[in-house]
């Protein structure tokens, strides 16, 4: 964290202090929480690191789109005859909207959760590392509320990151490929408007798929005072789980890995929608959020804050 950031942090907390003093009698004012949330949001999204992450995410659909355009320039189909590559890639040339699905399918396994892991891991450990955590705790918001605000900020980043990928993919898809009615993976046709609605739903489901990693990252972030260590641990855990998810001998454990049902978002493109995997995915994410969220709370509200 930069010096300027630290000073802005101190400024924010002194401002918070002032406003808190003014409202001493109304300690639980919800607006104050919103104020804290807004200040957190601004701090997070103004960071160069966050912007760079979002930039990388926005670049992925551009790369995929350009690659498909070049590969299919001679009339061949993308993904080869066997239909390899990320999901939906063979459809992109016929309908740019499919680039949204392909880009999400390509970024969900690694890029998106990595970005979320960086932001979540940094949330508390980064503050502790820069010595700004104590300033935040001087304000009478309490640790629980600070933790909740931090989690809300990370969730906002999940949504923002997913939307950045989706919007960038839609823009690239519209520029490079035709748009129009699309064929669902069940073979039925839906209009472009409904396709857009489904794309939005898919983006929301993808964002929700990241809530488990976000909670895990936040918990790791409460364990250490080093932001780098927390980020590395979160991303390391993510990679480990993804590898374990590929080992067939561990299939009994697979349903409990947070990443196991991630690609179920594609079930929204079936007609009728197949809800089984989707509900399992969302249930699992809620479980991870509950377990690691409460673990983070248990840790954060009882630990000694020395930095």
């Amino acid at each position, binding site marked *: 964290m930069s010096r300027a950031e630290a000073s802005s942090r101190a400024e924010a907390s002194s401002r918070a202090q002032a406003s808190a003093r003014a409202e001493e009698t109304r300690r639980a004012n919800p607006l104050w929480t919103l104020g804290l949330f807004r200040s957190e949001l601004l701090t997070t999204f103004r960071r160069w690191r966050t912007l760079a992450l979002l930039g990388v995410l926005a670049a992925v659909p551009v790369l995929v789109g350009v690659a498909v355009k070049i590969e299919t320039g001679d009339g061949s189909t993308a993904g080869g005859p066997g239909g390899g590559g990320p999901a*939906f890639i063979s459809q992109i040339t*016929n309908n740019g909207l499919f680039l949204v699905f392909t880009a999400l399918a390509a970024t969900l396994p690694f890029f998106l959760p990595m970005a979320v892991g960086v932001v979540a891991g940094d949330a508390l450990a980064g503050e502790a590392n820069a010595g700004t955590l104590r300033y935040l705790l001087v304000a009478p918001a309490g640790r629980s509320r600070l933790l909740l605000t931090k989690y809300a900020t990370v969730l906002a980043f999940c949504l923002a990151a997913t939307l950045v990928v989706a919007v960038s993919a839609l823009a690239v898809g519209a520029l490079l490929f035709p748009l129009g009615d699309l064929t669902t993976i069940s*073979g*039925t046709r839906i209009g472009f408007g409904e396709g857009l609605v489904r794309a939005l739903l898919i983006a929301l489901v993808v964002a929700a798929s990241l809530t488990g990693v976000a909670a895990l990252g936040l918990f790791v972030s409460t364990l250490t005072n080093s932001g780098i260590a927390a980020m590395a641990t979160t991303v390391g855990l993510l990679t480990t789980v993804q590898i374990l998810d590929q080992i067939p001998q561990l299939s009994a454990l697979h349903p409990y890995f947070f990443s196991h049902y991630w690609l179920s978002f594609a079930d929204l493109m*079936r007609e009728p929608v197949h809800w089984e995997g989707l509900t399992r995915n969302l249930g699992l994410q809620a*479980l991870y959020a509950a*377990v690691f969220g409460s673990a983070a709370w248990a840790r954060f509200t009882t630990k000694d804050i020395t930095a």
Partner: protein
Amino acid sequence: MAPYASDDMTTAGEAGEPRAGRRRAARYAVPVTVMGVAAATIGLVPALADSGDPDLPEITAAQLIEKIAQSDVERLSGTVKITTDLGLPDLGGLQDGFAPGAPERGEGGSSADPSTRLTELASGTHTLRVAADGPDRQKVSLLEDAAEYSLIHNGKDVWGYDSRSNEVYHATVDDSGEDRGQQPPATPKDFAEEALKAVDDTTSVTVDGTAQVAGRDAYRLVVKPRQSDSTVGAISIAVDHRTGMPLKFTLTPASGGAAVVDVGFTRVSFDRPAASTFDFTPPKGAKVTEDGELDRDRGHSGKPGNPPKSEEDLAKGLDGLTVLGEGWNSVAVLDTGGPGLPAADAGGDLGGFLGSFGDRVEGGFGTGTVFSTRLVNALVTEDGKVYVGAVTEEALVKAADRGK
């Protein structure tokens, strides 16, 4: 206590060390409790959902079989889970190695060709979606990760659509019944019909209580071979009490263990599916393969590469084939006329790989190699005869001795 106090600042001031420790333990109990509750829910919900076997009026086995035969469900939609565990490693297309009459898959074919796709059902667990509206409109979809293979029959057209590769297969049919007969069985009904064909005096058929399948009350029909040589332990068919449609089919081997074939609806509705379900127009840019092109590619052996699911199919599909024995103990004999182990030659590398699975046996017929699965055993003799049947290895050798 921390210099910068936590939430409950008022208590923190006077709290001593042991008290803080207790409070910490109490807080850590929250995530542990959440995890425990979740684990208990995951464990208990299926048990609670299993609300016991429904009460249905008594019915005899003969009446139940009659009920299945009279079942005229024309409209339905649902989800079918199919699990096959033959005890083989998951190698798609393995059946082709066993049946030398079947065409090679892959080259020149389309990934949307039904005969190359539905054979995938022969191993592993798959989820299918089925919908039907009368004899002219049916749809079967094989759900894959982020992709789907759909086979749509609407009037004269049969479409196969592979969304992963965006390839389309198209055929036209004059007689819808004939085409359907060529498809491998996919729904519990198909399997049940195959099983009930085999019902004769070598079979015991009983009604074994009731069950609930896909939220519907059903009778459980149990079909058991009387002959001891069969590798089939029992076949259990859950029959919907109202429509008479088989909802679940389970084949357990005589050797015990998990079911070899387990096909059942996880969700079923007897309402008319939306008409748009059966509409299909090839998406822009999709590669469309017409049925005739495939036949030309295949040359002479234009027979679809279905796995032989019953003795009848096998007898129809392959020339030079005789059946020894009767009922559940029947053994199909195929004289390849070639040298020994034709399956190994035909399958190339796969065949050589298979050879390492086989056991050498000797008997009155000479020597041969036995390939065992949990259900079907095959004996390939050195003089090029293949004995296949759902019978034990000894019965196979005996049949070979007799057939000599």
